[in-house]
């Protein structure tokens, strides 16, 4: 499969992310690096390989022991390591596949892909290791965290291969995954959180108990917030719920109240657990969402 066929990657977005990253680098890189450093002292660099000395290389990186033995100048190359491992949990359930019939903008899944790609890019730019796990009611695919820039391609491929389907089972997935996650790492959960599960709070609490830094992105399409439909409509579920035939006018107010209550509920939970919760509608520009997120992170780190 050619990734370009299915992965509708907008180069403009990436360019914007890149520029945003460039802008953000100066603002947040030090904070992030410093922040990580303070947390993970002594585990900075790892030897990777030798290379012949060429003028311009730092003299202090010449391995003098090898010079003594071989009389050749070899420079020690160290693998650029980071002190942050980030796993992105990407919800690939059926509900993420919602495509609006009247909105020609980014679909929910594309929006989430772009978001994950941007985050990945941002993190990789900072030489943080980024992994990607796709799930619905189980783990669909898993890309372990790596910090190489070339890893970005793997991530893009993984994102491109996402086919929304199945039922959302966050609790089951995270419950099975949490043991394998590296301790003190970062977990980014990208989902619409449209699930009948009532135990998300418990799951998040479990993550926090593992000292994981959790960032929760809830991505919803505006249709899912405002229910703008009219007429006699049969709503067929993208997951396994039975179809419902109704006039949306009859339930719109009730629905809107319900979804807002849910959003508020997640926000409150996340605040109480120290989790960064970001609510994004697909109508919100990604830059705006990301910059808002970074600014918010920055303000949090300053505290």
């Amino acid at each position, binding site marked *: 499969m050619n990734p370009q066929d299915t992965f509708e990657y907008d180069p403009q977005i990436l360019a914007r992310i890149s520029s945003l990253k460039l802008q953000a680098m100066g603002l947040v890189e030090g904070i992030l690096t410093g922040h990580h450093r303070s947390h993970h002292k002594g585990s900075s660099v790892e030897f990777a390989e030798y290379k012949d000395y060429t003028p311009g290389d730092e003299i202090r990186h010449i391995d003098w022991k090898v010079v003594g033995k071989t009389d050749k100048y070899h420079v020690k190359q160290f693998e650029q390591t980071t002190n942050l491992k980030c796993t992105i949990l990407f919800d690939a359930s059926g509900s993420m596949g919602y495509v609006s019939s009247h909105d020609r903008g980014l679909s929910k899944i594309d929006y989430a892909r772009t978001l994950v790609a941007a985050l990945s890019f941002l993190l990789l730019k900072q030489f943080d290791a980024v992994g990607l796990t796709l799930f619905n009611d189980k783990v669909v695919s898993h890309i372990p965290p790596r910090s190489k820039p070339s890893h970005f391609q793997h991530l893009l491929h993984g994102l491109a291969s996402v086919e929304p389907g199945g039922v959302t089972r966050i609790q089951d997935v995270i419950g099975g995954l949490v043991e394998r996650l590296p301790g003190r790492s970062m977990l980014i959960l990208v989902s619409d959180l449209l699930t009948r599960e009532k135990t998300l709070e418990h799951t998040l609490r479990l993550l926090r108990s593992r000292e994981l830094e959790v960032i929760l992105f809830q991505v919803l399409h505006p249709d*899912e917030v405002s229910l703008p439909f009219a007429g006699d409509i049969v709503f067929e579920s993208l*997951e396994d719920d*039975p179809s419902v035939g109704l006039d949306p006018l009859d339930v719109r107010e009730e629905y809107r109240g319900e979804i807002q209550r849910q959003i508020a509920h997640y926000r409150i939970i996340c605040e109480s657990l120290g989790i960064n919760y970001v609510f994004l509608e697909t109508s919100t520009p990604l830059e705006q969402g990301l910059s808002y997120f970074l600014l918010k992170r920055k303000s949090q780190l300053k505290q």
Partner: protein
Amino acid sequence: MSLQFLSPIYLLGLLAAGIPVLIHLLTRRQQKHIRFSAVYLLSQSRQRSIRRSTPNRLLLLLLRCLAILCFSLALAHPIFSFTGPQSLLPESPSATVFILDDSFSMSAATKTGGSLFHSAAEKFGTLAKSIRKETSYAVVSGSAEARVWKGWADSGESVGKLISGSVASFQTTSMGRAIAEAVHLLDETSQPEKRIVIFTDLQKNGWTQGDLPEFSSGDSYKIQIVDFSALQAQPNRAAIESVSVDQEFLTNTRIVRVRAETRNLSKTQPLAQLAVSLWTHDKKLSEGMIDLPSQTLVARDFSFPQPGGEPVEGYVEIQEDGLMPDNRRYFTFQPDQTIKVLVVDGDPKTVEHQSESFYVERALNPFSVALSNIEPTVSTLNELPQRTIMDYSVVILCNVRELPLGFEIELERYVLHGGALLVALGDQVDPKYYNEKLGSLLPVTLETILTVPPDQDAFHFALEESGHRALNVFTGQPLLEMRDIQFHSIYDVKPREDAASSIPMRFSNGSPALVESDLGKGKILLFTSSLDRDWNNFPIQPTFLPWLQRWVKYSAHSLESLSHQDLLVSQPLKRWQEGLPGTTLFVQMPGGKIVRPPQSTDEILFRDTTHPGVYRVYQMAKEENPGAQEPVETVVPALPEGTELAGTFTVNVDTGESDPEKIPLAEIQKLLGNLDVELIPVDELDKSTAPQEGFPFTTPLLLLVSGFLFWEGFLVRRE
């Protein structure tokens, strides 16, 4: 169980039930299908929403359709009954003979305005349409004629039209003959199931054992009797049984008296002030009222003058009741049929009672005024040439010595043309002249006078009861009196060899007393004694008057008048006088139709007496071609020239059919022996004729309509 509709046209309204469906289809919003993520939230929201009830459009549609359907059905007035219509037609192939009673009791009016026969014919018509092909059927009339309307092979369509276009006859019921005919027809078929279906009013008159065929134990005819009597609007209350007409005697005015006898047919109800009217020549002459106790016969007399002496035709009528044909009875009367008689006195005397003609004149016209229908004129021999004998019906020669010269030739022509000659002998008679000159007239020759000595027993009539029309009234005492009459002298006569004669009366010694012979159209009678007291004491006997009058009337062909024939429907007209065979007759029927009866030599002249009324008989005055009469009855458009009225006769219905009493099923069963007999009242045969007997469904349907509309309104209001 059956469901019928009084106004089925409103069932077309059922089509209106499609209107809501049409509106629903036209206004139906396009239902969209959207694949959505948060369907579980929608379900939760709907459950929590107060206005969660989506209007069930299909339920609304159903309610509206049902309301329209019920309303249409209610307008059509449905009638539901648990007892379904009884079928006369079997499922299996069969042979069925339908007997349609067309007697005049079936012409009784029904509640709907038609007649019972009309209802029966209609019922048969609808039934005939549903007869399956494998069922063969025949139709027989139930009146006295027992006519086969349709045999097995005849077309059903033509018989349907024939029956629906016909009316009840004026004949009596003869169910026995009809059943016999039906059995005869059924015996011709090989179908295993044989049935007889009778449409009748169960009039008791027609069920007689004598006409019914003999049923054996192997006969398995199934007989179904459909009783139409329940449809009769009102019972037959009274009938005129007889009308007699005579002329009042011994009065100076010619008064005709009509006596009509009317019977109350009801067993319980008397009839008060029943109007009886007399009509002659289509004009009402008189009307009266009579009170009739139940089951009694009451006579009502009408009198009216008839000075002209013309024939009277008319009828007596009572006011309408359930059955019309027996409310009217026809009569005809010939008031004065005067027979002019020329009495030729051969021995006139100056003392009146000594004249030869004295007793004859008194016997023919006893009251000296023209009140009897015989008008004698006495003439002497000298006056005879001045008389025109053709003006007289009868010429009586009393003790005539000899006739004026050449008069015997005139007399012969007179007899040849139909005149009657009565010759009485006496002492003046010259036997030689009689034997020579009157040889062509008299069938006998006069021989000698036989005289009884005074000391010996006189001659008497050797008379027995006779079938002769002139003598058949002399029975019992009059006959004994006749035998006691003493005759002292009589002529001995000897029959001529070349002349035919008969001798209706003889004397005790065997000599002929009266010799009868025909000549041409006329008749000649020879009495071998005298008509005065010279030779006998006959003229002073009581029997002399009827004896002489009857012989005069007999010879003048007026003993049996045509007008005396009062026939019943279907009774044939018989020959009423001799000498008719060669006569061409025409009969004008009550409707004006003129037929020429077929030529025949038997007693019956005319059979087509199917309708009650006055029939006129005409005969040709001058027979041009006596042998040209057709052998079959022919209808002629108008009376030919040269016909003259010979007389009239009446045809009336047989009031035996008027009896309103119905025969019960048990009696029919008894008459028909071991056959399977079923009696079906007509209203059970087809409930459509009496739909009011079911349960009307209109109100429940209207209640349903209101219920549906209320429910529909409730649902719409909730929406």
